[in-house]
């Protein structure tokens, strides 16, 4: 009988070998394929299995993960969805994530390098990983003001602290409800996404940093003014011809002056007066005199053409190269192929406000782990020196004059010295414009720099919206 017992034992050993083989096949060789199977919800659940950190503004959670009973452990919830959609982005099981949900994913999911030791601790304690809380520099009151100003319009507003780079408000209109895209109801998410994605007004864009970039229009004249002073060829007393139309070299094109101000009243102008009335021809002449390399260099000094992460990725603004003189003339007044983001415009004003030093704009104030240990604290850092303190001071005075005596007077705030510059960028030849305002206040101790753009408005409507929006923002910051 022992022979049979031994045979049976060998058969048993074969069974174990067979079972190990089957397990090896599934767990080792086929593991990746099986994990990728459409019915395998594990990969998807993985991203929902840990409690994602919150995004906090002014002590209030604007994005948080709450326990869920629908098979996922957590549901991402946005408490003020439309107000902050451009910042938070969405966290979708189908379309991935956008905005800070994507840019800060490592921290929010708890997988950041800084959380390495937390993860080790969690591994030994067997707990699930929990993400860090990301607190933003946004001031909820200013954000609210910005959103109300844009309500019903297409456009964007950025407000930042010029001394630190902290972004106080960043609004984009129209907005959307990220809750719709972060739902666990796949059908509803697909419907919502296709509706938003095919909307001609592009609600999914954060226009402040990554929409289709805008022509900066006359706000670009600030860079012309800086370039003029830096060249040494011009100063506050320089007088420049101010023809009502400028025949551009080697073309039949005539560049007209801005029609709504007082440009037509003088045939010669100082830079101060030309800036205040936003006359085109003096700046076109200055630019053609200095040459495109000088203007391009100054634009670069203010951040054109530079990559930036705040930590949302910012589309680089563009000042074109290899232009003919007539193209340069148009570029100098922020037309032609000059493209910018509202954030870039706010950064330009910030640099002027902050004695020529451009601070790195930032949205994230702090990152705190679940154990409340701080993983990151914001500290201001200088991005670059855009121009000298003297030149910044001179341009600042000119911008104050824009508000006090010029066409940016709508931005004036009682008892406060406000610096500003408007812009009206034509969209093709339709008579429709993108209307701009940028500026900062108070001029002698700047607390806030703003950029406001309204898309697709006629010049009069634009003028009635932009400077008053600046005023409302300054009041929101200064009177609170």
């Amino acid at each position, binding site marked *: *009988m*022992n*022979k*049979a*017992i*031994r*045979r*049976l*034992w060998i058969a*048993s*050993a074969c*069974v*174990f070998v*067979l*079972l*190990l083989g*089957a*397990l*090896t*096949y*599934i*767990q*080792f060789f*086929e*593991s990746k*394929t*099986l*994990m990728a*199977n459409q*019915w*395998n*919800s*594990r990969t998807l*659940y993985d991203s929902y*299995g840990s409690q994602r950190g919150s995004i906090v503004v002014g002590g209030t959670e604007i994005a948080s993960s709450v326990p869920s009973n629908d098979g996922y452990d957590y549901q991402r919830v946005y408490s003020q969805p439309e107000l902050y959609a451009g910042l938070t982005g969405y966290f979708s099981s189908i379309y991935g994530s956008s905005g800070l949900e994507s840019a800060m994913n490592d921290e929010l999911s708890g997988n950041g390098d800084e959380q390495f030791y937390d993860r080790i601790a969690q*591994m*030994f*304690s*067997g*707990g*699930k990983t929990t993400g860090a809380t990301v607190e933003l520099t946004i001031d909820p009151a200013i954000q609210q003001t910005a959103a109300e100003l844009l309500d019903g319009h297409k456009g964007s507003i950025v407000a930042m602290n010029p001394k630190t780079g902290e972004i106080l408000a960043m609004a984009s209109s129209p907005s959307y409800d990220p809750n719709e895209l972060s739902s666990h109801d796949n059908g509803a998410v697909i419907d919502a996404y296709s509706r938003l994605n095919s909307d001609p007004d592009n609600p999914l864009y954060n226009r402040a940093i990554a929409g289709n970039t805008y022509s900066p229009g006359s706000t670009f004249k600030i860079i012309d003014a800086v370039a003029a002073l830096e060249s040494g060829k011009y100063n506050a007393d320089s007088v420049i011809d101010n023809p009502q139309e400028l025949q551009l070299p080697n073309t039949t094109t005539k560049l007209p002056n801005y029609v709504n101000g007082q440009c037509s009243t003088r045939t010669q102008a100082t830079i101060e007066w030309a800036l205040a009335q936003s006359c085109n021809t003096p700046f076109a002449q200055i630019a053609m005199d200095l040459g495109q390399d000088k203007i391009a260099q100054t634009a670069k000094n203010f951040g054109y053409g530079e990559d930036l992460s705040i930590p949302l990725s910012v589309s680089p603004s563009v000042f074109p190269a290899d232009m003919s003189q007539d193209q340069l003339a148009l570029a100098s007044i922020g037309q032609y192929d000059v493209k910018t983001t509202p954030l870039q415009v706010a950064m330009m004003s910030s640099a002027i406000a902050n004695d020529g030093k451009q601070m790195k704009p930032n949205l994230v104030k702090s990152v705190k782990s679940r154990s409340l240990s701080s993983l990151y604290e914001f500290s201001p850092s200088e991005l670059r020196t855009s121009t000298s303190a003297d030149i910044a001071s001179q341009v600042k005075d000119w911008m104050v004059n824009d508000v006090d005596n010029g066409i940016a007077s709508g931005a004036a705030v009682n008892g406060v010295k406000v610096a500003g510059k408007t812009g009206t960028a034509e969209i093709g030849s339709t008579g429709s414009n993108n209307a701009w305002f940028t500026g900062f206040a108070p001029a002698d101790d700047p607390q806030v720099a703003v950029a406001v753009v309204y898309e697709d408005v006629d010049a009069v409507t634009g003028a009635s919206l932009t400077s008053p929006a600046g005023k409302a923002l300054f009041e929101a910051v200064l009177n609170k």
Partner: protein
Amino acid sequence: MALSLRQKNDAPRSRYIVGFILSAVAVALCPISMWLIDSEVIAGGDTRWLTATLTLGIGALVLYLVIQFKARFADPLILPLVLALNSIGLAMIYRIDLTTSAQAGASQVMWTGVAMAAAAIVLLFLKDHRALRRVTYISLAVSLFLLLLPLIPGLGLEINGARIWISIAGRTFQPGEIAKITLAIFFAGYLSTHRDLILLAGKRVGPFRLPRFKDLAPMFIAWLLSIGVLVFQRDLGSAILFFGLFMAMIFLATGQVTWLVLGFLFVAAGGFLAYNFISHVYYRISSWVHAFDPDVYNQVVGGSGQIVQGVFGLASGGLFGRGWGNGRPDLVSYSNSDMIIASLGEELGLIGLGALLMMYMLLVSRGFRASLGVRDAFGKLLAAGLSAVMVVQLFVVIGGVTRLIPLTGLTTPFMSAGGSSLLANWVIVALLIAISHSARAPQLVDTFEPEESSDTIDLDSYENDGATSVISRITDHNNADHQGGAVRE
């Protein structure tokens, strides 16, 4: 003889210390695993880990002492191996309790205690495993009674289409698990007595001898039992198990592969009929073959969702596993019972599951080893049969989870949630320990009952070889194995 007796008394002492240490480590696996699963729960004052550890620890200590007292020559590896498997099973059930609505932990701990107590009682009162031979036919009657219990109206309970449970005072019990043991006792008893008749009586037809019908009767009883269980209780797993047990036993008794071939023909015929006429079986097979077919996967009744999700669980574990508490066993139905292998595979990985399989392999090997060593045919058949039934059970469970064979509802011994399974398997372990004690204990010639002598001659060898070579071969084995059996042969 006196000399060899002394040596055998002294030699194992250090091994039992090792056995004690290994048992302690095995028990410690339980709280360590539970702590790894979620230390916060434990830090928060949850005492489930303590209850589980104490139950296991006290049970282990009692069993260890009982073994020292009643079966001190027993194989020292068996107890720690089983303790380790039970520990890990408790930890996984506790872990699944934490994240799903299943609450099997407390009951499983209680049953662990009951099962270990039962094992201790078996060891205490079973002076000699050969005593069981006297209850051969009573065992058959008990088996039939146990198997029929769930069919009694009011007592039986049907869960998910299978009527294999009985419900007493709110607790459910699966009598079929105990029937596994009583059937093994019956087969061992019957075959140890009748194997000569089966082999030698009857007409010779062609190359092999056709047994007489009356000698074949148990085979038909077994076949009818398994088909009966399948038809009336719709429990494919138990049917396969009983049949596997019988096939192993008859092979052990006769040593003829012909029986296995014949047996598999029966299975094939039975399976074919069942596939065509029993929807339960049809679903099992179609969800095995076409598991990844969307129609089969999404089928509400008898679909392959459970199998596929189990396979995903294993795949998710990969080589190293996701670690205790980090998998998603909640995505797999029956994750703490029939599919506990998938849960373990997900969290412990191929390496962890491989280690568990090695432990099973080692446990089964110790069973076969006891079977080889013990001197009486009944003991040999019982030990090898019980070991084989464990292998069959593991093959049915793990083979089912890994899609080697169709998935059938069976528990993984010592690990799956289920009191009856735990009780039955601990009793099996007690029997294996008792038999291993007999196998390893030094014995003098006159302690043997003369009636047993005919059973201990290896019939295969007897037929094929000369008597001298048989004796010398057995002697060689026995010397190598430190057995006393050679003395009397």
